[in-house]
């Protein structure tokens, strides 16, 4: 059964419509990629899911229709959103950033366990807990943002362009970690990317957005072999 399902979702900024009816499904335990050019509506789709932008249509998550809910409530259902630009709380320490990730939780022992689990993916964080987050490099901030999201112990992880502005070697590390999180913890992941190559290698399925509409979808293998995809997004 799909953990997340969008049905004809529309969203606007003022009078400008950014999503013209987006439909997609994310199966439980899978990684799904959302591809598309700059301005296609990828970020807006994630923002619609987490309630950061007002959306109409149907957004079903684990049996709830969450369209129109506030982000605070969506987070409580188990959706962690790593926003575009990472949303690092730069003036807070690394440790405080992680604490904020677990803000809605009360189960101390489980939080401790999730912290240990998170540190398996990001062992370098342990020794740098007391550092102010602004002093981290871009790649480290991206990792911290993912670590903060894991502290929510999410059912669904939304990643908005985790590769943005990072060196290829760092990007590779981050995608390895993303895959490991999915494989080892079974966390369902919806990842937005402009870098289709990367995303198709990590994901099982992908959707392609163009000006607020899904124009293509399929398994990663299908899409990677698709002629127009190769031309537009894979740089052939």
């Amino acid at each position: 059964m799909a953990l997340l399902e969008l049905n004809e979702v529309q969203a606007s900024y003022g009078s400008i419509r950014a999503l013209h009816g987006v439909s997609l499904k994310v199966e439980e335990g899978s990684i799904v990629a959302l591809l598309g050019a700059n301005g296609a509506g990828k970020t807006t789709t994630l923002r619609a899911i987490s309630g950061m932008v007002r959306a109409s249509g149907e957004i079903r998550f684990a049996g709830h229709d969450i369209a129109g809910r506030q982000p605070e409530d969506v987070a409580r259902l188990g959706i962690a959103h790593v926003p575009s630009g990472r949303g690092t709380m730069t003036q807070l320490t690394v440790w405080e950033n992680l604490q904020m990730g677990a803000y809605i939780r009360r189960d101390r022992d489980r939080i401790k366990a999730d912290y240990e689990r998170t540190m398996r993916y990001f062992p370098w964080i342990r020794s740098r807990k007391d550092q102010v987050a602004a002093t981290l490099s871009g790649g480290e901030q991206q990792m911290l943002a993912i670590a903060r999201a894991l502290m929510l112990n999410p059912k669904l992880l939304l990643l908005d362009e985790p590769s943005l502005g990072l060196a290829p070697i760092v990007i590779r590390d981050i995608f390895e970690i993303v895959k490991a999180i999915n494989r080892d913890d079974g966390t369902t992941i919806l990842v937005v990317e402009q870098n289709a190559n990367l995303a198709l290698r990590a994901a099982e399925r992908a959707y392609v957005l163009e000006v607020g509409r899904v124009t293509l979808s399929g398994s990663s293998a299908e899409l990677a072999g698709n002629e127009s995809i190769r031309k537009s997004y894979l740089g052939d």
Partner: protein
Amino acid sequence: MYLVTLTDFLQQVVSGIASGGVYASLALALVLIYRAMDVANFAQGEMAMFSTFISYTLITSFNLPFYVVFPVTIAIAFAGGVVIERIMIRPFEGKSVITLVVVTLALFYLTNGMAGLIFGYILKSFPSPFSSAPISFGGIFVTVQDVGVLGVCLVILGLVYVFFRFTKVGLAMRAAALYPESSRLVGVRVSWMLALGWGLASAVGATAGMMIAPITFLDPYFMQPILLFAFAAAVLGGIESPLGAVIGGLTVGVLLALVGSYLPAGQNLRLPFALVIIVAVLLFRPAGFLGQATVRRV
């Protein structure tokens, strides 16, 4: 002759530090709200005035001792701050700075008018919780009053520090003020954090009111000069820095005490002097002592 002058000078400094504690408290209240909304709450002083009238009523009409009245008033002020935010500020959350300024000005006149209506305009003397007996520290005489006022203010400021530094809600309030979007994504009810901030600022302001009222007398206008001094303190310390507000408050307290006692007609020069501080800081060092020119990556 020289010794007498030095002693006198030091006494002025000490009593300046004591009033500085009061300015620091109200300045901290301003900073708390400024950090959360990017707006100075012009009604902060009037809210403190209203709280002080409540404590006056509890003392004089209900004959309660000050050590009971003080925490009760702080609790009422806290609740009042939360309610005011929910009713008057919430509808304007996210609106432009100028809109919010107008709302706090409206709150200023509303609070002032209500205080006049309920408590009257006659000057009242506020019973001091501390004696004005002098105690000597190596030849410098300070009053129990001065020491008590400073002590109470420092304890309150310390509690605010501990709250923000070491509690989960305190951390969430800091995060909500600086990073509202990221905070909402991890589940923080940012709008309620703002209400809590108003409650806290109101409570800290009430402390300032109750500490300064025995020195200044009480009427619906008594906090207005104090608010100006607190503004000078907050601006001097860096309007976004809580520690700056405290340092700024103590500094302004000492400067005003010296101006008041050493310049001819100095008492009348204190308000203009505070204005000079504000203008000078804004002109020459807008970030104040401790404010950082925040770098925002877009």
